[in-house]
C-alpha cells in the first residue's frame, strides 16, 4: 500500500531542489534572498514530514527567520554603501569579472561526480539502520526530562550544546570586533500601522517564545527555538528604532551574552564531586538544573541573536545623524 502522502513528498523534494537552483541562479540578489527564505521554509516543512518538529522549528526560526533578516539587512547596507538604494534591482554587489563558462562547467561536472558518488553511497547505506534509539530509550528515565531531544541536548550530549553556545558567543565577540564606525543606512519612520502591529505582535511573540521554552522539557521546543522567537522581539525593536543601543548599554549586553554560557558551564562544573564528573547532574535535581540552564540560555540566545542582527558594538551617535530631518 502506498501512502498517498508520497506524491506530496515527491513534489516537495523536487521543489526544494528547484528552489536551491533558483537561489543560486536568480540574477537579482533580493530575489535570491526571498527565494532562500522560501527554500528554508520548505525544508522545514520537509523535516516536519520526517517527524522532526524540533528541527523544523529551529530551521524556521533560526535558519530561515533570523538568517533571512540578517541577509536582508546586509543587502540593505551594501546598497546604501554603494549608493544603489534608489534602484529597483539588486544585481551583484561585488565587482567581479565574469567566470569563464569552462570553469563553471568543470566545477559543475566535478560537483556532479561528487553528487553521484554520494548518492551511490547513500543508497548503499542501511536505511532506517542502526542508531541511538535503544540507548536513548534506556537512559531517558534518568535524564530528568520527558522529551528525548531536550534530554540529548541538555543531558546526554550537553557538552556539544555548551560548545554550541560558545560558538554563538564567539560570533558576537567577532562581530563586535569586526564592525566599527557608524555607517548605518537610514530607516523610515514607521507610522500608525506599526504602532498597532507592535501592540499586537510583540506580546504574542513573547508569549510564544516563552511557551516554546517552557514546554521544551516534555514536547518539541526548547531553549534554541524559544530564544530565536524571542530574538524576533529584539529584531522588531531594533528595526523600528524603538530601542537604540547606546554605549552605556555595552556592559549589560556583555553580561547578557555570557549569562547562558557562564551559567551552563558553571552548573556543569559545580555538579562534579562525590565521584561525579562534569555535566553529571544528580538525578533528583536534573530537571531543576536543566530548566535553570535552559531559561538562562534562552535569554542569552535571544539577546545574542538580536545583537548579531544589529551588528556593531553600540557607539555614541553624533547628533547630526538624525534621520527624521529630511
Amino acid at each position, binding site marked *: 500500500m502506498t501512502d498517498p502522502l508520497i506524491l506530496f513528498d515527491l513534489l516537495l523534494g523536487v521543489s526544494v531542489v528547484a528552489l536551491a537552483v533558483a537561489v543560486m541562479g536568480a540574477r537579482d540578489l533580493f530575489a535570491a534572498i526571498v527565494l532562500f527564505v522560501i527554500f528554508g521554509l520548505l*525544508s522545514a516543512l520537509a523535516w516536519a514530514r520526517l*517527524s522532526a518538529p524540533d528541527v523544523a522549528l529551529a530551521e524556521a526560526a533560526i535558519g530561515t527567520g533570523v538568517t533571512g533578516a540578517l541577509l536582508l539587512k546586509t543587502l540593505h547596507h551594501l546598497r546604501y554603501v554603494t549608493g544603489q538604494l534608489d534602484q529597483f534591482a539588486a544585481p551583484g554587489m561585488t565587482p567581479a569579472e565574469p567566470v569563464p563558462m569552462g570553469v563553471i562547467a568543470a566545477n559543475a561536472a566535478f560537483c556532479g561526480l561528487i553528487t553521484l558518488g554520494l548518492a551511490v553511497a*547513500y543508497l548503499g547505506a542501511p536505511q532506517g539502520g542502526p542508531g541511538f534509539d535503544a540507548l536513548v530509550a534506556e537512559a531517558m528515565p534518568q535524564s530528568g526530562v520527558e522529551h528525548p531531544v531536550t534530554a540529548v541536548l541538555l543531558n546526554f550530549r550537553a557538552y*556539544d550544546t555548551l560548545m554550541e553556545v560558545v560558538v554563538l558567543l564567539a560570533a558576537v565577540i567577532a562581530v563586535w570586533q*569586526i564592525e566599527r564606525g557608524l555607517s548605518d543606512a537610514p530607516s523610515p519612520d514607521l507610522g500608525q500601522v506599526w504602532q498597532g502591529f507592535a501592540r499586537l505582535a510583540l506580546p504574542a511573540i513573547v508569549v510564544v517564545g516563552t511557551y516554546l521554552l517552557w514546554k521544551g522539557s516534555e514536547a518539541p521546543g526548547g531553549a534554541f527555538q524559544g530564544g530565536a522567537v524571542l530574538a524576533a522581539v529584539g529584531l522588531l525593536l531594533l528595526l523600528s528604532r524603538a530601542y537604540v543601543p547606546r554605549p552605556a548599554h555595552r556592559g549589560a549586553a556583555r553580561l547578557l551574552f555570557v549569562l547562558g554560557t557562564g551559567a551552563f558551564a558553571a552548573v556543569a562544573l559545580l555538579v562534579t564531586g562525590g565521584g561525579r564528573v562534569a555535566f553529571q547532574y544528580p538525578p533528583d535535581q536534573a530537571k531543576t538544573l536543566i530548566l535553570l540552564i535552559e531559561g538562562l540560555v534562552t535569554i542569552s540566545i535571544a539577546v545574542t541573536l538580536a545583537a548579531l542582527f544589529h551588528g556593531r558594538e553600540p557607539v555614541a551617535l553624533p547628533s547630526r545623524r538624525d534621520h527624521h530631518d529630511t
Partner: protein
Amino acid sequence: MTPDLIYGLTGIAVFAIGLVGALCAQDRLRRVLALKLCSVGAGFILVVAAWREPPASPDPVPHALVITGIVVMVSATAVALALIRRLQTLEAEADE
C-alpha cells in the same frame, strides 16, 4: 518508495548545488547563500538518517545534532555577513 529515500536524495542534491555555488559564485552575498544551502543539505542527511518507519519514533540524537548545526551556522553566517559589510564600507571609503 519511502519519504527517507526522497528526502535523502533531495539533501544530496541541495548539498551539491550549494557546493557548485560556493566554488563558482563571485558575489560575496551569494557565496554565503551557497554555504547555507550546503548546511541545509547536510541537515537533510542527518534528519533522514534519524527517520524510522512511522509507528516507530525517530532517533532523537541526530535531531539534536541538526539543531546544534543550525545554531552554529547562523553564528558563522553572522560573522561572514559582518565581514562583508565591513569590507564594503572600507572599499567604498577607499574609492572616495
